[in-house]
């Protein structure tokens, strides 16, 4: 089995679980793939739900969220496999 490559992901943090799930719903409706993940320490909190999107979708995701009235509280790039 070959080792998997590290990739960059954009992780978005939110003020509440409700906002995170709202954001997920908005992105899903618009065909942007987002994965719910435990919040990594880089977004400033070690608790709660964050959304992980691929870098090529990050700008589109931010636009959709602004339009939907959901402001991410943080946006960081993390590496994962």
């Amino acid at each position: 089995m070959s080792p998997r490559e590290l990739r960059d992901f954009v992780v978005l943090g939110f003020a509440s679980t409700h906002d995170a799930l709202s954001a997920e719903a908005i992105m899903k409706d618009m065909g942007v793939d987002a994965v719910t993940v435990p919040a990594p320490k880089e977004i400033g909190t070690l608790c709660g739900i964050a959304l992980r999107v691929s870098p090529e979708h990050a700008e589109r995701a931010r636009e959709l969220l602004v339009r939907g009235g959901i402001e991410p509280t943080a946006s960081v790039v993390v590496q994962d496999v």
Partner: protein
Amino acid sequence: MSESCPIYFDHGATSWPKPQEVLDAVASALTECGGNPGRGVHALGLAASRMIFGARTDLAAFLGVADSRDLIFTSGCTAGTNLMLKGLLRPGDRVVVSSMEHNAIARPLNVLAAAGVTVDVVDADETGLIDADRMEAAVKAKPTAAVVCQHASNVTGTIQPVGDLADIAHSAGAVMLVDGAQGAGHLRLDLGVLGADAYAVSGHKGMLGPQGVGALYLSPGIDPVQLVEGGTGGGSSESPTQPQSRPDRYEAGTPNTPGIGGLGAATRFLAVHAEDQRAEEARLARRLAEELSAIRGIRVIGAAPSEPRVPIVSVVHERMPADQLAFALDRRYGIAVRAGLHCAPWAHRTLGTLETGAVRFGIGFGNTDDDVDAAVAAVDEIVSEAR
């Protein structure tokens, strides 16, 4: 009629039976969605979070709330009335409130009065209708922080002029706070236009959800202080203080996922069936009021039977005490009603029934013409024996 399957006319206290979808959702919350919502980001926790998210967004849409974050889940309507009153009012404030209120309003206001809030009670008329002119005169008499009233009476079913009262409140710079225990579900609501700054909802009466759950709408323009602090899960654990964002600010502690999930299912059921259900329960309530009032010695309290009401019909007999009539209905006919003061001594004082109480028939989901026939015949038989 067996004890396990009564003719149920106590929907004013709680609805029964529930739609099957509600039972299924409660079971699902305890099985497929058994994690702690907003905490662990694993499959069971996420399923619970999504159940609550879905319930909130669906209930917001059903009630006409534009931003579902303004809809707070509570343990019931009483928790909502306590939050809106105690979260907003401070010593020195003045409140104008109607005399038809339930103890869910009266008792918190009595506590606030002892702490220095002035509480001025304005008498409703003898049918239980809040008189907007009297309320306006009271509001204009002195600086007023809040106007407080019910949307509908739990004693007479009277539908109150909340929109007019909201206009009166806002003209005076006051907020409008509404106890919607008997309104939500039974009345079509659009909280975005009603004018209430806060509106407390029961989840288990007209909304058909399980007991132990309710909701409180808070308009974006008000900022009540939370009454409870604690864990809120997502995104704020490092903070030593309660987050200020809605809904988390007002939802400390593990939520009642089975109750909220059940309320969400009930909301989706009502989104499809509410118009038919309202028409049917209004028709049955009118029939019941008209036919009970035709029985010698029985008087329907509140407005005339032909007047619009939420589906509540309360009666008194000229001689038979309310508790005896209710007991006979239950024991001899398997008909469930509620006797007494219905947690609303202010209302019964207004209606002149504080000393006698009344027998309340609460009509709702599942009731039929056969139920009305049985109730009318039973009351007629029981009071005939007392003549």
